């Protein structure tokens, strides 16, 4: 007898309902939390989208990226330009950011699609350093000061009652929820499966009718689109799009978040985002009263050591490690 097992993953509809519930919880919950936490929540949401974009590209499609910050920059600058030059409403610029970054990703992906491993890492690294430096040189992009990107206040009569942080948080959280739902849609569809197949064995995938080059460029494009969204969310929290916002350190931080959360699952991204936002703050506050040198360098050392430790102990991320542990017992 042939039984068609239902997949263990919830269907798209279930996912959407789940997302709605999460959204409502966040919406209601945001009224009971202090402003600073809400602001940090918005940051976490922005990082979350960035990490998701890395998980898609590196975790699923197997293309390593050290320069996701550059794609975020492309998205953010496009959005800010759209406001500045054409006076477009802010909400449209979120789409523009996604499209612009995706387009850019497609172009870069066409060349990067031929590279692998450290060669790709090298190219993305150079890109990550190059883009902010370039932005600095192009006058229309506002130099070091960058461009303003202000999502403003809640509309109409809510402008006075809803604090700007809540407004910011809602927008960033909405972006993050949409991003996660779409990302999960992709990874649980044939598309995600194809990416993983190409990652695992390019030749075998080709013989199954998948065009590996196309598949890789597609992953690059989609991931860049997410990065673009991360970029605007991120810029919304700063109110500004500037070269110093998209340093190599940002790209590395996101990658770190992706690894710590678990690079092979979208589910880890939230954990990763929380870690990269919260952990440094915690250690900084510990060492605040220490002497100058110690206060300057100790937090960095602790965070780095923690990072090393977690990679050595759970390279797949905490969820996978727990899973393995459970299987053992």
């Amino acid at each position: 007898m042939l039984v068609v097992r239902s997949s263990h993953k919830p269907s798209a509809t279930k996912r959407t309902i789940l997302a709605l519930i999460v959204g409502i919880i966040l919406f209601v919950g945001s009224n009971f939390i202090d402003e600073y936490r809400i602001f940090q929540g918005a940051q976490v949401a922005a990082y979350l989208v960035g990490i998701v974009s890395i998980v898609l590209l590196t975790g699923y499609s197997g293309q390593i990226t050290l320069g996701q910050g550059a794609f975020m920059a492309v998205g953010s600058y496009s959005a800010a330009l759209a406001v500045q030059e054409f006076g477009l409403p802010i909400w449209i610029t979120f789409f523009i950011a996604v499209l612009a970054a995706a387009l850019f990703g497609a172009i870069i992906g066409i060349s990067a699609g031929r590279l692998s491993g450290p060669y790709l890492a090298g190219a993305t690294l150079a890109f990550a350093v190059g883009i902010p430096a370039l932005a600095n040189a192009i006058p229309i992009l506002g130099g070091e000061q960058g461009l303003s990107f202000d999502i403003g206040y809640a509309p109409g009569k809510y402008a006075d009652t809803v604090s700007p942080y809540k407004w910011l948080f809602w927008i960033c959280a909405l972006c993050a929820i949409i991003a996660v739902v779409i990302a999960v849609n992709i990874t649980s569809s044939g598309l995600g499966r194809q990416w993983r197949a190409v990652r695992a064995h390019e030749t075998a995938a080709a013989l199954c009718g998948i065009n590996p080059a196309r598949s890789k460029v597609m992953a690059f494009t989609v991931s860049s689109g997410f990065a673009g969204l991360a970029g605007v969310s991120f810029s919304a929290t700063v109110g500004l799009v500037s070269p110093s916002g998209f340093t190599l350190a940002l790209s590395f931080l996101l990658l770190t978040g992706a690894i710590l959360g678990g690079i092979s699952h979208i589910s880890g991204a939230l954990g990763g985002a929380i870690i990269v936002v919260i952990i440094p703050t915690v250690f900084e506050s510990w060492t605040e009263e220490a002497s100058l040198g110690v206060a300057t360098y100790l937090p960095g050392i602790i965070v780095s050591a923690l990072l090393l430790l977690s990679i050595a102990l759970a390279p797949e991320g905490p969820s996978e490690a727990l899973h393995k542990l459970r299987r053992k017992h």
Partner: protein
Amino acid sequence: AQGAATPGVTKDTITLGMSSAQSGAASPGYNKVGPAMRAYFNYINEKGGVYGRKIELKLEDDKYVPTNAVNKVNKLILRDKVFALVGNLGTATHTAALKKTPIIKQSVPDLFVNTGYSGFANPKKYPTTFMYLPSYIMEAKIMAKYIKDKFPDKKVGILYQDDDFGKDGLAGFKAGGLTFVAGGTQKYASLSQATVGLTAQMTALKSSGAEVIILFGVTSATAVAMRTAAGLGYGTTWGPQFIMGSVGADPTTLLTLAGATTPALQAATLRSLTGALSLSFLPAATDTEDEYVKKFIEINTTYNKGVPWDNNVLVGMNQALLIVQALRAAGENPTRASLISALKSKGGTFASAGYSKLESANNVGYTGYWVGRYNSTGVIAPVDGGKPVVYTTDSSTANGDVAVSTFTRPAMPADGVPTNK
């Protein structure tokens, strides 16, 4: 407001906040400013504080990254509920903070921002923000005036940092009526001087025939430029007059960079520095005769243990001295509003080490510079010997009025403890 307590002020404390680069690539030098301020506050606290209240400084590290700055300033205002922000560092970082934190909305006093970007001195846009440094435009105008006066027929070249800092400078030079020799306008990107060097630029400057060369960049770039120049024959076959902006001429840093602490390099270092001109608005940290410098060194030794005295410590202590006076002027029961209005009305009269007037009335910082020359021991002293001649101007790019300042610096309060009202 009536009834509601002023944030950051309790019966016996006043809490201030500061966000600056304590670590990361931009931090060296600047990361001494905050601790120096704290050291001075501790000194004051020991002397009874401000009307009995002890001053606490919360120091946050933003690594010179705008996102971090927003996060940290938000933390200071929303979480730590500081009374005022003091000495925040950086243009892009602070622009972001002004946008995405409640500085303006909650009227948080935002004192003595540590940047020369003139745009912050804009009471309409940023009613609570006060500058500290003279603007880059002022500096360039003063430099232009000095060069036109002292080197009237010489060909002038410039190396500037290719960003807003350098561009502000260029605008100032233009306003000052300075023209550059063909091929004598060279720029570098802020990250590239360490990785690609400045050979291309310095070679071009040399072949342009410039006799006076302005170095309008950060200190590390100045050092690379000087060193590259040495390789091109500076001091032997090539003898241009170098003149450096204040940002790129922090003497301690410059000396270290050039190798003053490395025996093999000392002689060459001093040779290449000797004779170079530089602009400053505070006394030289090496000027131990200066009453302010003297007192600050004293305080540094006891309250900032282990931190060597240098220009950055001077900057921090001087800021702290101004802040204490502002807090006193705000009254026995200070509010954010009273602090701002006190600063506006009385800031110009505060005692400080600065040789020019503090234009707090218009949210502007110091307004003048003096020109100094490095001698053969690596110490900077006024060009013509004796007291420094201070030039003053404003930040407008429209008129180039630069005048010798008539401002006389107030004397140091007794024992370095302000008693103003």
